[in-house]
Each structure stands twice: as C-alpha cells, then as structure tokens.
C-alpha cells in the first residue's frame, strides 16, 4: 500500500531549521495494524500527516498504491484525502455547531454524494459505532468517548482504505480508551482496512501488529519478538 523512501521533513521556525524526519524508509501493506511511538517532538505526527496526504516531504517519495504523494498537487492530495484516507484526531475535531449525523455527513460532502444517500450512509456509519441513538446530538451534548466514536464514524463513512489515528485515546479515560481501541480493531478486521495509530500509550501500541519508534526523526521498527515481550 505505502512505500516511503528516503523521507525527510524540515520546518522553518524563524531563523531556525527544525528537522522532523530523517531519511525514513517504510513499507506498509494492506490491512496492516501499525503503532507509531516516540517522544514528543520526535516526528510521529509529521509522519502521520505525510501518510495522510496533509503535507509533502522535503525529500524522498511516498507511494500510495503507486502514486507519489510527494509529487502530487494540492487538488490531487485533496482527492486522496477525500476518498482513501480516514482521520481520527486526539481532540476529536468535530464541528461544534453540527449534530453527530451532520458531522459524519461532512466527510461525504466533497464526494458529491446526494442528500438522501449521504444521510443514509451517515446513519449507517453512526450505527456501526453504536451511536445511532445520538445522531441528533451536538458534540457538546456527547461524552468524550461518544465524540471520538462520531469522529471514527466520520472517518469510516467514505469507506477509506486506510485509517490514520493521531493519539485517538489521548483524551479518554482507561475504560473508554479500551472501548475505542476495540472498536478500531473490530472495524479493521471487518473491513480489512489499514490502521496506523500514533500513540504514547504502550497498551495501545502493544495491540498493533507492528510497532515503530521515532526518535529525533529517525524511524526504527521493533522486531516482532521484542514486540511480544513488550
């Protein structure tokens, strides 16, 4: 699915150049469940944004099913995000003025889905995360766990091939965290989609098939045996 070669990413912070990623090589297969761990500022979110076509690398190439995202224009990256990638954020990032149902529908707006189909698919997505009874509620009327479920429904409603989650349980208590992770794993196994989770939580990371470590922009992958020892 993904083929990252020689990825480097630098930012300008005033007069300073900050290196977020250094010569990263990574291959991700269809259906993989990957956890990315590392220190704060280690480049985890940057790597996730590159995988999610939110940004372009300073060097290297990112092939998504053969298409190089590093060489694609803004419009093409937008199309990739709209059709193939689902995002789940730590802060849920729901539109506060829209209901749960309408928040889910926002993901279908760029796909030109008709109103009736949009409503039906959003309702189905909410039902798949167990929130069909909360469809008409505003985010402020939902708990943190429920909000994250709405965010997951929004990511899934367009049937993406990859789900990218940036600290999806960072703002949740332990029980809710467990529910959300189990939900994500169930969805991955049911739909066969690729799941990439950035997390500080070792419990969450241990649930993944592959664990990647980012330190000062350098990516290393822990061997499977080591992962099992955890």
């Amino acid at each position, binding site marked *: 699915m993904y083929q990252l070669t020689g990825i480097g990413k630098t930012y300008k912070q005033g007069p300073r150049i900050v290196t977020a990623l250094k010569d990263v090589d990574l291959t991700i297969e269809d259906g993989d469940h990957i956890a990315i761990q590392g220190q704060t500022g280690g480049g985890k979110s940057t790597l996730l944004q590159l995988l999610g076509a*939110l940004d372009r690398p300073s060097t290297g190439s990112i092939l998504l099913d053969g298409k190089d995202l590093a060489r694609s224009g803004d419009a093409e990256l937008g199309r990739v*995000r709209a059709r193939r990638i689902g995002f789940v954020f730590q802060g849920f990032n729901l539109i*506060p003025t*829209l209901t749960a149902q309408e928040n889910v529908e926002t993901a279908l707006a*760029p796909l030109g889905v008709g109103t009736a189909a949009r409503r039906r698919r959003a309702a189905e997505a909410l039902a798949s995360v167990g929130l069909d009874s909360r469809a008409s509620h505003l985010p402020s009327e939902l708990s943190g766990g429920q909000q994250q479920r709405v965010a997951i429904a929004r990511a899934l409603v367009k049937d993406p091939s990859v789900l990218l989650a940036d600290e999806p349980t960072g703002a949740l208590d332990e029980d809710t965290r467990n529910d959300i992770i189990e939900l994500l794993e169930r969805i991955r196994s049911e739909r066969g989609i690729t799941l990439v989770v950035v997390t500080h939580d070792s419990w969450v990371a241990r649930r993944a098939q592959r664990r990647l470590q980012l330190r000062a922009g350098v990516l290393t992958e822990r061997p499977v045996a080591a992962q099992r020892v955890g």
Partner: protein
Amino acid sequence: MFITYLTRELKNRRRQTSIVAIGMALAIALVIVVNAVAGGVKTAQASALSSVYGVGTDITVTQATTTSSSGTQQFRFGAGAGSTSGGTRSFNSAQLRTARGVTAFATTAVTKVAATGGVKAATGVLSLQSTTFSGRTPTQSSGSGAGGTPQTRPTDGTSAGGPSSFGIDSTSVLGYDVSASTAVGPLSSTTLKSGRMLTAADTGKNLAVLDSDYATSASKKVGSTVTIDGKAFTVVGIVKSTSATGASASNVYIPLDTAQKLSGETAKVTTVYVQATSASQIPAVQTALQTALGASMTVNTQAGLASTVTGSVSTAATLAQNLGLWLSILVLAAAFLLAVLFTVSGVTRRTREFGTLKAIGWTNRRVVGQVAGESVVQGLLGGAIGVALGLAAIEVVNLLHPTLTASASTGAAGGPGGPGGFARVATSAASIALSLPITAPVLGLAVALAILGGLIAGAFGGWRATRLRPAAALRSVA
C-alpha cells in the same frame, strides 16, 4: 450541507452576526435615505423651477445684463407736476420697463433658436415690471424741492417721517406670444382657473390674464380692470400655478406686442424658452444655440437652472449631494471594514475547524464558498434590516412633511452680479413640502451594496482560509 452548516454557524455566532448586520443595516439605511433626500430635493427644485420656467422647458436663452442697461429706477417730477389741493401736492406716476437686471434683445433671436437643429419648440417672452409711484407733499415745501427727485424705496411702503407720504406699487408683467402654443414657457405650468386664455385674436389688445394669488390679493376677477403704465387692461382669465410653489411666473400676462409697445421695447424679448426634441439632445442643442447666438447670450439648461434655485431647498440639495454622499461612503466603508475584520477574525478562530475539513477532503473552493456564503448572508441580513430602516425613516420624513423654502428666478445668469446674481426677474418664492420618493433603483442599489459588502468580507475571509494548510492548521492547535 452548505445551508445547514451556514445557518448553524450564523446562529451560533449571533453576537458577531448581529454586529455585522447592524453595521451594514445602518450604512444601507443611510444610503437609501440620502438618495431619497436627493431625489426629494431634486423634485422640489424642479417644482420651484417649473413655476418660473414652465413644465417642459429644457433650455432658456437670456442676455447677460450690464450695469448701464439695468440702471437705477427713478421717478422725476417737474416743478408743476402733480395737483394741488388743500395745501397738499399729490404726485402719481407709472412706469413699465424691463425688470431690474434684465436685458431685452431682438426677437430675431427667437427665430434663430427655432431654426436650430434639435429644437422642438421655442417662444419668447418680455418680462416687465410695472411700477406706480404715488405720493403727496405739503405745498409749502414744494418750492424748495422743485425739480427734486423723490427717492424710490425698495418696498412699496409709505414714508411716515413727516408730512410727506410716498408709495410704490410694483407688479410683474409678462408679455407672451398669444398666437403661439403655451406648451413651452411659463404658462405651461399653469391651469386656467376662470375665464379664458389670451388667443391670437387678442393680439395688440389691452387684455390680461392674472395669476390667481395676485388676483386674490388685488381683489381682481374676470371682467375687472388692472392698470399697467396708466392703461386699463381688462382681465379675461385667471390662471393658477400647478407647481408646488403655488405662484406662477408673473402677476399679469398680456399680449407680447402690447407689452413691447407699452415698454418701448419694440420687437424685443427678455427670455426665450426652448424645448428640445429629446432629453439626450439638450447638451448638443445648448452648444448649437450658444454658437448661433454668440457669447453675449446666456444659454442655460435645466441643470444650470437648478443652481438658480435658492433657499433651504438649495441647502438641502447641497447637504444631500456633499455631506450625505460622503457620510454614506464613510459609514459604508466602516460597515464593510467591520464585516471584513469580523470575518477574518472568525476564520482565524475556526482554524482547527477548517483544518479538519481540509483534512477530510474539503477543497479550498468549498471552504471559501462556505466562508463567503456566511458573509453574504450576513450582508443580506443587514441589507434587509437596512432597507426596512431606510423605508421607515423615509415614511417618517414624509409624515412629518418638512417644509423647504425655494426661490427661483428667470433672467440672465451672469452680468455684474455673476451667475445667479442680481440679474433676475419673475422671482417665485414659496414653501415646498419635502416628499422623499422610494425608487426601485435605490432599493436595488441597497441590495447590491449588501451583497457587495458580504462578498468583500467573504473574499478576505476566504483568502485567509485558503492560506491555511491542513497540516499547519491542525498542528497549530495540537
């Protein structure tokens, strides 16, 4: 999705929406009121002008006055003038001459005007002032005053400083071509109240038509006689002005040839009234007439004539055109700025929201459309409130009926008094109730301005939104 998102956002940001809408509403209301005042004042000016120039007069031709031609009005009496009775000598003298500040010119100018291309109709009139002096002095003082010249007074009051008393009676007299149509000229803005108008058969006769106000004040009616330059004229009709000013151009209307003969201005007129074939022809006709008649003649259009209207209507016109216009522009600019600042600030506050939408695939176009849509609706909301406010303000003004004074005069603009100076005659002064019109173009302008304000604010907000890169937008709040 677009409508749902838009309405939710505007409802959620009620305070901001209200501030922007109210700012826009005030600006739009001001534009409507200023435009309506300008329209109302223009109508009042036209009304004041029509009483003097008549309806349908596009151009007037006069001759610039010189000091020598206007002269000083004097009555001279010889040593034996007047009649003596009981120790008192009585004087009585009448004059009929072109009004102060007006110069008569040859009627050939009327022929020249009528022959000019683009002229539909032209008629010449002779504006005169009939002044009667009457007074008495004690006979014992008359000896020393033999050949003296009693000074006329600017009014027709009676001197009361001693045994002598003098009085001056002044009446405006207009000689017009009774064989020509009255569709153009001062009488076009009058209606016959009683009797009849003068006709071609009345040429050379001592017959007169009176202005109704003058007839009332002088207690004259059809069949009465009025004295002009010592001659008795029979009143055959009474006309009433159709203009809001109430008074017509002259007190008395007589046949042109009679007026010329009595005043000694043979084959002369003081003003030529011109109607162009179409409004678009007026500037060309003005130029052609000026060329044909020479620089000594003054050719004025209605636009130029409007500047001769004085009084509070003139002040209102100046206020509407200058202060009103600039105030509207200023308030409109402030309202637009307010809308822009609030929209840009709103986009900045919603950085994460727009970053998220871009992350899930929303294009810049869709995000800009959303921001611009919200701004345009805010503008339209303000526009709707502004139209309501403006209409209410106009309604209040129309109910209050504020009165403006207007004074319009015929005569040459120019000469020693400068444009609109003393070179005037047949002045019509009256109070006009200001009525503000509501016109579709003004309402259309208001709606267009509201949309424009929304689009400008939306353009700035949208520009700010397009500069948000999704990754940076999400990172900025992470």
